[in-house]
């Protein structure tokens, strides 16, 4: 074939046709969801790289009921919500708590776990925090003040580790940092526990569910201690993150979550991964 000017013209027209066909092809595309893959038991990564845990199971069921195709990818926590806000991903499932601050940039589905956060310490540290086994709602100012000041007293001059810009780091910076407790923030969740066990940290703070998964593997060396906190700046449970304004997807998923809550599937999933029911009645 000889290459003439019209060859280029024809190739150009063909390319333009392909480009304009693009959006049509994208119609039945898979939605892209992301998770950290390092926040047991919500989401974890197998040695071969596949993601598993409570949230991958949950998302599979939600997608089945809401009727969409999806792909779940691993993405580091910092940058995750930004990625959804920018539309790089369609959604994120990473134990993301619904807070007023986050609602300014993204939308959420209905909550699928109720949350609550507490502390972990190394057993040989000899440190125990007051209020173990009690739950404090941050909406209750008097109870919060009593419990927080008791914990601050026990932690004075000590270092508490937490993952960066989580509800727990908000809590620590708001309530404990002004009372003489040093807060150290980590980009990744697992690093916090590593430094706790190395003795660099006196205590770590995370969600109850995350701490109980950590304790399952380290029950001889670490323990949970202190009151648990929820409500207020700790938000209103964990939901699926979607792009701001993507009400259609959020509503579809909320409806699916509601039906899972109604027929007991949600609770069954919770029992499977957490060995306790941490899900709300929707």
């Amino acid at each position: 074939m000889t290459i003439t000017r019209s060859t280029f013209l024809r190739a150009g027209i063909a390319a333009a046709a392909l480009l304009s066909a693009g959006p049509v092809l994208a119609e039945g595309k898979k939605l892209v969801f992301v998770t950290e893959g390092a926040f047991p038991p919500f989401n974890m990564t197998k040695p071969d790289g596949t993601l598993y845990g409570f949230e991958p199971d949950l998302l599979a069921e939600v997608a089945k009921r809401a009727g969409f195709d999806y792909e779940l990818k691993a993405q580091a926590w910092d940058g995750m919500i930004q990625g959804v806000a920018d539309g790089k991903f369609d959604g994120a499932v990473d134990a993301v708590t619904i807070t007023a601050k986050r609602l300014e940039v993204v939308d959420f589905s209905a909550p699928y776990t109720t949350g609550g956060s507490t502390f972990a310490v190394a057993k040989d540290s000899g440190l125990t925090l007051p209020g173990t086994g009690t739950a404090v709602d941050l909406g209750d100012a008097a109870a919060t003040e009593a419990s927080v000041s008791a914990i601050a007293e026990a932690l004075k001059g000590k270092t508490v580790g937490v993952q960066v810009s989580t509800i727990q780091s908000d809590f620590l910076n708001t309530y404990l940092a002004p009372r003489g407790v040093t807060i150290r923030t980590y980009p990744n969740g697992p690093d916090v526990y590593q430094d706790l066990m190395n003795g660099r940290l006196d205590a770590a703070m995370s969600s109850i569910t995350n701490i109980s998964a950590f304790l399952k593997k380290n029950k001889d060396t670490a323990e949970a201690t202190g009151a648990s906190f929820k409500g207020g700046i700790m938000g209103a449970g964990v939901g699926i993150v979607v792009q701001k304004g993507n009400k259609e997807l959020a509503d579809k998923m909320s409806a699916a979550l509601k039906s899972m809550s109604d027929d007991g599937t949600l609770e069954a999933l919770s029992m499977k991964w957490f060995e306790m029911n941490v899900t709300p009645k929707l």
Partner: protein
Amino acid sequence: MDLSFIGTMFLRILGGLPLTLNLWGLSLLGGAILALGLNLLRTTRVGDKVASAYVFVFRGTPLLIQIFMIYFGLAGFGFIRHSVLWPFLREPYWCGLLALVLNDAAYTSEILRGGLRAVPRGAVEAGRVSGMSRFTILRRITLPLAIRQALPAYSSEVISMLKATALVSTITLMDMTGIARAAISETWRAVEILLSAAAIYLALSLIVTQLSVWIERRLSPWQFQRTNR
């Protein structure tokens, strides 16, 4: 783009400037001393092998991995946690500084070695026939010529160390990058925040570039006069 937001973030990131400058300055100082030591070591046969191995390891592995190895790796050994070093290695600051010093020493020692090899043999011989001792030759002839020779390459290393300090944000240190990263995960406005941080780094490296040109001119003015005429 929201200018008042950039302004706030700029000031917030400047809060990390003291730590960045501290790590930068001390790692260059420690690295330079260690680099000089490594080059003195190269005068013996065994020492030469040791110095080569050191440079090979620290130049051949990513700084990020070195930081992690010192911060997380060393802490994994019980005997280190119970040793006299632990009060230092417990603190992220000392781990970060140690990694930066060790890494900088490897690069600086190679730059200095290049400079030393470029010292003309005649200059050293002239010193020797004038009756200078070995130390005086090192102080008055070899090092000044070597340092002048190494200066352009060294100014690159100085800038590269400035940027290398950003990696300590991975081990919880709140330098300028650490603060920027925390601010991004709070506000999810990466562009404005990263631009503010980049502008500060750029300003700092501009100072280094200008300073190194000025020193070069001072140390060998004839080179610059010839090109100007």
